[in-house]
């Protein structure tokens, strides 16, 4: 196994030791209890709401893991001073960093996969329990495979958030890294506003600046198709491919920047 692989597996094992996977139990309990409770509150919209809740939960749990584990990946090694031992071995700093990244990605992939499986199981149960005349009014079956498109884009978003968290953690404290990652994620949802800012202000400099930020800040809103898949709206393949390419390119950019900063960092 390559150096990157060894580091990645260790990160995954560490996350298991840190009981990160317990969130899966919370997710399952949340979804199952919601499917029982909300039926009475929603005037027949229980399946739609379970779909919304499931997809939002996959996204939220993934985000929490990506941010709060991601920011500690490098910092923990520095804090425990184990970084000196590690870097004394025949391992390049970039390999160490990529190993950390892929380790967390592995944790996230397993998390998202298990949450998605639990999500479909709950929906399959609800579908089986619903009379055919009610099912006929649904825009799509409860277990509509098209929802996997939203899950795939959530996963891509998590890959980018992890990369950003790791990037900040190469030069900043965990608290600041978490704040900055959160800030980038939030700003990334206001891209549309940044683009349209010019129409509401008179200063051309400010408008140009906002437009510049629009192009630079990651467009997290692009990864969100949850609403569309729940309502069985078509997501063109071109959109999926373009967004995937955008996400992958941005991840590569952030990881490269993180590797450059990390390689220049002085640990003395």
């Amino acid at each position, binding site marked *: 196994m390559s150096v990157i692989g060894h580091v990645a597996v260790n990160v995954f094992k560490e996350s298991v030791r840190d009981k990160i996977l317990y969130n899966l139990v919370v997710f399952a309990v949340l979804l199952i209890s919601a499917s029982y409770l909300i039926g009475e509150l*929603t*005037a*027949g919209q229980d399946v739609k709401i379970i779909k919304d809740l499931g997809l*939002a939960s996959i996204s939220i749990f993934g985000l929490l893991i990506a941010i709060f584990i991601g920011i500690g990946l490098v910092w923990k090694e520095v804090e425990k001073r184990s970084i000196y031992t590690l870097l004394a071995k025949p391992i390049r700093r970039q390999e160490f960093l990529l190993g950390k990244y892929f380790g967390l990605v592995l944790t996230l992939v397993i998390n998202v996969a298990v949450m998605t499986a639990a999500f479909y199981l709950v929906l399959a149960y609800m579908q089986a329990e619903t009379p055919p005349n009610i099912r006929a*009014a649904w*825009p799509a079956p409860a277990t509509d495979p098209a929802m996997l498109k939203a899950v795939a884009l959530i996963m891509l978003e998590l890959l980018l958030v992890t990369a950003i968290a790791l990037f900040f953690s190469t030069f900043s404290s965990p608290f600041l890294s978490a704040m900055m990652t959160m800030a980038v994620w939030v700003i990334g*949802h206001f891209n549309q*506003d940044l683009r349209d800012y010019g129409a509401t202000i008179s200063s051309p400099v400010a408008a140009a600046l906002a437009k510049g930020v629009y192009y630079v800040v990651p467009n997290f*809103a692009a990864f969100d198709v949850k609403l569309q898949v729940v*309502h069985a709206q078509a997501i063109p393949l071109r959109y999926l491919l373009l967004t995937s390419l955008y996400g992958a390119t941005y991840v590569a950019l952030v990881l490269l920047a993180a590797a450059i900063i990390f390689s220049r960092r002085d640990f003395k």
Partner: protein
Amino acid sequence: MKVHPAAWAALAALFAAVIGLQLLQTREQPLGLPAGVSTNLLYVRSPDFARRAALSFHALLADIYWIRTVQHYGGTKLSTGANKQYDILYPLLDLTTSLDPYFDVAYKFGSVFLAEEYPSGAGRPDQAIAILKKGLQAQPQKWEIAQELGFVYYWWLADYDNAAMWFNRAADMTKAPDWLRPLAAVTLAQGGNRTSSRTLWTEIERTADADWLRDQATFRLKQLDAMDGIDFVERIVQQYRARTGMFPTSWADLIRAGLLRGVPPDPTGTPFRLDPATGSVSLDPASSLNPLPNREHPL
């Protein structure tokens, strides 16, 4: 440091006192409010703000507002207080549909909640129309929303020209069912007769995806049956009068005359009531079908 046993006892006593006082407070009548003062509170009223604040969780926030809508409508409808107000119903529906423009049920049920006469609903068909038109802006080919618009004009505003126009528009949309075009024609020609009412409610009963809406349609169809039944029995009363020169004093007169086999019941099984002075037939006050809509224009 060791805690004094008296401290534990005081803690237990205070804990018991808090629960006891809370129990007492629960039994007290709630403090009244002046008439017209609403206790309904909505922190966020701006759909634009809600959309931005939701980040990528629009649908989930829309669900939360939808649950609040259902609770607000249901709670207000069932409340027995004098201050029954549906004042945040429209803002809640506006927020729900702004966060999730494809939330069809919010338009469909929301328009029913808004249009239904006070105190069963908000008694605001104008707001029902506004929310449905908003739905059509988001989904211009959704025939169900156009049909609902026609329904609001037909049932709650007795505006048959507009009702027929919306039924026709719905019929022009993709995947529209065949029965919409004849319904539009009947509505335009005979505005508000029982045939068009029956067509509407039968379709709602057949296609309803919620029990309460299906129950509502079944109830309305029973009312229409009761109105047909009343017309039928009144014709028999007129036959009796033509024969004897007077109105029957009771059902027994009609049975003895061979015009009826027994006491005629409404669709719920409750006997109709006969007015011997005028010969008019009506529902028994105990019937669950009361009050009946206008028999000439069954709104």
